[in-house]
């Protein structure tokens, strides 16, 4: 069964106060090299569909429920077991 990862961020023109707070904190932790910090969501799920239906399913799910198109944008991809964000846990 394919596993899909969906990454969600606030649209670029929207102020991300969490990202800004981290951006301000990082120099104090010795990471002055970091900039343009944005905080979002990473969603993973198994999908019991394949082929063309996969993209349609993911996009419908993401557009109608997992993200709010008024404020958020997303990218998605099919991932292998070793690409899970929790693969090394």
């Amino acid at each position, binding site marked *: 069964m394919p596993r899909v990862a969906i990454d969600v961020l*606030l649209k670029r023109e*929207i102020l991300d*106060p969490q990202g800004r707070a981290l951006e301000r904190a990082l120099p104090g932790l010795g990471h002055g090299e970091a900039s343009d910090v944005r905080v979002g969501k990473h969603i993973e799920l198994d999908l019991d569909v394949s082929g063309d239906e996969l993209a349609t399913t993911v996009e419908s799910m993401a557009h109608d*429920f997992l993200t709010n198109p*008024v*404020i958020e944008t997303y990218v998605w991809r099919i991932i292998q077991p070793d690409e899970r964000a929790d693969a090394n846990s």
Partner: protein
Amino acid sequence: MRVGVITFPGSLDDHDALAAATRGGAEGVGLWHGDTDLSGVDAVVLPGGFSYGDYLRTGAIAQHAPIMAAVRAFAADGGPVLGICNGFQILCEAGLLPGALLRNSGLRFVSRPVFVTVERRDTPFTRGFDHPGPWSVPLKSGEGCYHADPATLDRLEAEDRVVFRYLPGDNPNGSARNIAGVSNEAGNVVGLMPHPEHAVDDDLAGGDDFLAMFAGLASDVPEHESLSR
């Protein structure tokens, strides 16, 4: 006038909304998120709280509750629908109101009285106000920063759909153009972040500036509105 108040899992202010409807002279009717009809009420309130624990996004899960199909049909038919705080977030997620509510720009949960002006007094929820204010009302929210793209904001202003505004210089959460509440195109669906149901009793901390909202709702239902449903 029967005012229905929907309880979702995680609603907090449903009982205050029922009490406010009663205090305004209406009959408060409790409605359940799992219901599929509105029990014949004349107006619907989506109360404040943290429905479904604010999981995913505020209001994102509640907008798919079984009762929301009936709310959509009622709203499309011209029925008065009010969303307070989390209820406003739900109405935005449901697409019944434009825009969305973001994390407060200061990142802090804000719990304090604010002043708002009533910019439009011909909705079912604002016809009881005899002047634009400012009126005092409690605000208590962490995700109350109203956002819409500039074209939508321009359209809202042009169509007179900004119903409540924070005072210039006292915008508590970074909301675009100091917007505290908006309406749909027809004016029968209204949402706001502050809590009018906590401002209906002068013996309590919230004062009673917003009793006019519930008194206005309870009285003076134009005949064409009641006939149209």
